[in-house]
């Protein structure tokens, strides 16, 4: 099988997802080449052919331009499988390619069997096994699903691609995440609030438990989106990545984006009314309870010794 990996590069860096693509290719046991709009100064740890376009000329974000270059490489390589990371770059570009190639696209692949791909459904409560009927398949890989083994250091064989024209979408730069706020990465204990807190006033009980444990309070995405907590307290893919000694997830269902930000915590306690909540997958202890009852009681027990 011939596989083409589509690497990801942003703000002057080749992203770590490239290693996951390479891991996926080695699990598939195919012959892999890589496409990257990036830079010679930061190459992926890859030993195959690397079709490299200079991002300085093409633009880091230029869907029409990247699409045109990638289609040229696909025409030359004739792969059966084109692999993207399931990321803001991958899910934007992959369907543009799949349509032109009349290829089925299977998104957020977490595993595979001999002739099927496995993807999550319903906030990871279900798995769906998918069979593709087209000659060429496009997939995007869930972040973290194909964790790379220790890979020997390698240098790709570079095949340079000429620049592309600007497309219909203008890209004028990046806005950094809001600076300042709380550095959660230093906290030994984090008590985190999810949608289950119900209303902003209940954040104070989360904060009280965090203080009783000499820790910081944090929040999952819905709580930050509702402006109940500031963005610097958000744990997850688009917030902070944390690894405290103790993480208490209160009313957090456990979307993959949240788990990615906290799964390295040493000990995880989840408090949730939903016994099937995906947070249970990473929790050492799941207390099935209404956090609004349990959290104040726990705070009281801790402070009274």
């Amino acid at each position, binding site marked *: 099988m011939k596989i083409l990996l589509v690497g990801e590069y942003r*703000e002057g860096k080749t992203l770590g997802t490239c290693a996951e693509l390479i891991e996926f290719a080695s699990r598939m046991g195919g012959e892999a080449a890589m496409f990257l709009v990036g830079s010679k100064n930061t190459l992926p740890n890859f030993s195959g052919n690397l079709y490299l376009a200079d991002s300085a000329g093409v633009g880091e*974000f230029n869907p029409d331009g990247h699409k045109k270059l990638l289609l040229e490489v696909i025409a030359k390589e004739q792969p059966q499988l084109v692999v993207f990371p*399931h*990321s*803001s770059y991958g*899910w*934007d570009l992959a*369907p*543009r390619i799949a*349509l*032109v190639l009349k290829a*089925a*696209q*299977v*998104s*957020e692949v977490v595993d595979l069997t001999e002739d099927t791909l496995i993807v*999550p*459904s*319903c906030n990871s*409560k*279900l798995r*769906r*096994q*998918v*069979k*593709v009927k*087209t000659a060429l398949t496009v997939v995007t890989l869930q972040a973290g699903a194909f964790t790379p083994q220790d890979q020997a250091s390698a240098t790709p064989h570079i095949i340079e691609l000429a620049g592309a024209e600007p497309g*219909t*979408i*203008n*890209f*004028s730069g*990046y*806005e950094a*995440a809001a600076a300042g706020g709380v550095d959660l990465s230093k906290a*030994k204990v984090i008590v985190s609030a999810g949608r289950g807190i119900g209303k902003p006033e209940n954040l104070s009980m989360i904060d009280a438990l965090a203080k009783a*444990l*000499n820790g910081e309070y944090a929040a999952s995405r*819905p709580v930050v*989106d509702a*402006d109940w907590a500031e963005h610097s307290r958000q744990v997850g*893919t688009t917030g902070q990545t944390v690894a405290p*000694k103790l993480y208490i997830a209160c009313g957090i269902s456990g979307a993959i984006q949240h788990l990615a930000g906290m799964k390295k915590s*040493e000990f995880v306690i989840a408090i949730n009314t939903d*016994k*099937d909540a995906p947070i*249970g*997958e*990473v929790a*050492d*202890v799941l*207390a*099935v*309870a*209404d956090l609004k*009852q349990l959290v104040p*009681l*726990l705070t009281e*027990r*801790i402070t009274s010794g």
Partner: protein
Amino acid sequence: MMNILVCIKQVPDMESRFKVNAAGNWYEDTDLAWRMNEYDEYAVEQAVQLKEQVGAAELTVLCIGPERVKETMKKALAMGADKGMHILDPDSHQRDPMTIAAVIADYVRQHNFDLIFTGMQSQDRGSAQVGVLVAEMLGIPSLTTLVEFSYADGTISAKRELEGGSRALVSCNTPALVTCQLGLNKPRYPTLPNIMKAKKKELLTAPLADFSPPELQQQTVAVFLPEKRGGGLILEGDPAELAEQLLKIIKDKTTVLA
């Protein structure tokens, strides 16, 4: 007159306890509470805000699915959409993203929309493909994963959310399609008078066959519950006793109270 479309999907409440259906290819759809896909709530809100901003505009809400999806469409009408187009398909759960996109694109070709809003993905299927595919089929630009949106004089200026919390500043001209990320705005709750008004709004239904659906490119061969990993302890019971148990666990298993 600006012609705006918002595409929505009806999904089960994600807190539901899911069971695999008899065919083994999706979830059992009885005994579920249905709601609007959360991403689409942001899409509807943004579309309504745009309509309010430009004044001379008409907003259509489109939904594909069985009869029950009309209830979810009524919420979009109560939020401020002017009329609804229901594409009736009892088997929508077996369609792949390319089919759904082709049907939407076929509808759009008949109506010339200036701007199309969709959620960036659905909560149940999560392919994150349909919006981009529709735009590509129509040959118009698409901006995805938006957390900020503004419109002036035929130009959309927006911010795309990226991993790590930074954002890409992007723009394009209409006609265009945008896919909405969580947090883009604050979706409004329909008021009672607006819920009443929505009942009188036009809600047309047409069968899927009217929109030349293509053949499936992919098929679900099985749906199953993921294996439970690890041996996480599950505690249930009286909250006061749970608090006692958790305190002991924190003392025994961690050093944070040492």
